[in-house]
């Protein structure tokens, strides 16, 4: 069964603290707005529906199919959630899915959770919605609009998330944009096709079994111009920023340095205190490591003491 690494879930330590906090703010704003909209537009029936659908998206990630050479395509879910639930509820569902993945299964970090929710939940949903609605309008209710819209929404949402991850890594000074953008963009352009095909299959199934679920959005139009414009802006911005950044990686690094996004780089102690040496140890690096080891021994001593105490207490009970 698949144990595919999910390169869209950034673990802790890979984004600088400032970038992480910035994306927490953006996520809080977007999710807060989505919460208000869901509270206003939708009935109380939505709460169990969102919960169970979130579980289905999580479980749906097990449904893979072999593509070639041992790799497999599987489902991220932002696009299909958007099609089934509308953009605001889908945003909340994806927020919950990504949060549980990080909190329980360590797919993605906790400090960078804001960025992960933003990439997959907010951007994934907004871009999906933009693409899906646009194609539906173009098709004027014809069937091909549903399927083309579903496929393109899936592919675009994955590609947008991947490019955003690459840019975030680049701004944090972890992976230069001229490597990260083509690598992430290229790999996910292929993954997106696999996932788009699954979405297509799922839509075809639902269209035959329960067309009312897919047409629900038509009968009860959700005012979505705002998120449509937001999705378009994101897709357009990423489409312009990614090639720019990858052709001028130093430019992005410069911006990051100006904004203080880069990870703090410690000044070398050799320059700071040139004559500083620990008594008896003539190598500065060795002295630093020894100080760390000493500290570790102290921590372990305390730990063992506590553990020993507990055992003694348990024995006396």
């Amino acid at each position, binding site marked *: 069964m698949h144990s595919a690494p999910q*390169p869209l879930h950034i673990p802790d330590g890979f984004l600088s603290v400032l970038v992480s906090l910035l994306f927490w703010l953006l996520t809080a704003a977007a999710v807060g707005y989505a919460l208000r909209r869901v509270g206003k537009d939708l009935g109380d*029936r939505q709460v169990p529906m969102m919960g*169970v659908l979130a*579980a289905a998206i999580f479980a749906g990630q097990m449904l893979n*199919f072999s593509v070639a050479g041992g790799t497999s395509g599987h489902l991220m879910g932002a696009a299909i959630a958007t099609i089934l639930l509308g953009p605001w509820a889908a945003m909340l569902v994806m927020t919950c899915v990504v949060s549980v993945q990080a*909190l329980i299964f360590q797919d993605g970090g906790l*400090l960078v959770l804001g960025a992960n929710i933003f990439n997959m939940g907010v951007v994934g949903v907004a871009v999906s919605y933009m693409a899906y609605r646009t194609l539906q309008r173009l098709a004027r209710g014809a069937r091909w609009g549903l399927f083309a819209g579903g496929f393109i929404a899936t592919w675009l949402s994955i590609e947008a998330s991947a490019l955003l991850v690459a840019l975030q890594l680049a701004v944090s000074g972890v992976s230069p944009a001229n490597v990260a953008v083509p690598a992430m963009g290229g790999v996910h352009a292929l993954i997106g096709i696999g996932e788009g095909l699954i979405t297509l299959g799922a839509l075809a*199934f639902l269209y035959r079994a329960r067309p009312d679920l897919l047409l629900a959005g038509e009968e009860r139009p959700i005012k979505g111009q705002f998120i449509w414009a937001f999705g378009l802006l994101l897709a357009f911005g990423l489409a312009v920023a990614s090639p720019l950044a990858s052709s001028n990686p130093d430019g992005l690094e410069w911006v990051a340095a100006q904004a203080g996004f880069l990870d703090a780089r410690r000044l070398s102690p050799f320059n700071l205190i040139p004559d500083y040496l620990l008594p008896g140890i003539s190598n500065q690096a060795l002295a630093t490591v020894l100080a760390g080891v000493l500290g570790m021994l102290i921590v372990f001593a305390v730990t063992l003491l506590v553990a020993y105490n507990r055992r003694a207490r348990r024995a006396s009970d």
Partner: protein
Amino acid sequence: MHIHFLDPFQPRQSPIHQLDPRVKFVLALAFILTAALTPSGAWSAYILLFALAFSATILSDLGASYVLKRSALALPFVLSALPLIFTTEGASLLDLSIGAWSLTVTQPGLARFASLALKSWVSVQAGILLAVTTPFPDLLVAMRALGVPRLIVAVIGLMWRYLFVLADEALRLIRARLARSGDAANAELRTGGSLVWRARVAGGMAGSLFLRAFERSDRIYMAMLSRGYDGEARTLPLPRIRPLQWLTLGVGLGILALLLVLAYLI
């Protein structure tokens, strides 16, 4: 059941398990924040961070190998930082030339890469410890106490309840596909028809999973209505945090702050 869907919680009677979930949550977040804030190349600080995580592991009665093994799962992402070794400017250690490409390993590059990998690794350990020593309902309590909106907590709670049910459904779907279209022992060999056909089958499975989820959510909604649900997610008031737990929180945050100061000084 799929390994990924096993509840990671391991019941024990350890001090880490008995820690109030809110205190544990805040401490884990503070630990990860501290790791993120430590400057690159502060090796002694990393050793201390690892020592803290490792002692918490020992205190949790889980056995050191359990947490260490799990923490290795998050390592593949380190690959994305590999270019750092070659792109950071500084004294060169090693020149590689592969065909027309030539890459230079620099000392600061290697140091930054190693720092990043270590920071990420200790952070994952903190996350694992939190997940493994806290039952899910307690995590929901901690989320509420930290101000996560009620609706989100309610949806996450429902999601967790039905996650295992739907994972079972998905497994049954996979078993049915396996029984009907076979499975090659060699992963390189394709099973079933063309790529599009396989994608269509997987898509049909996903669609049917979503359909079952929809229908189940209708039944759940009816059940909730019949038990007095009126659209409001009600919860018990949060229990008070005992003084000893406050002390643990204070000491823990103090140690982390001290460690951060040390990381910049030495």
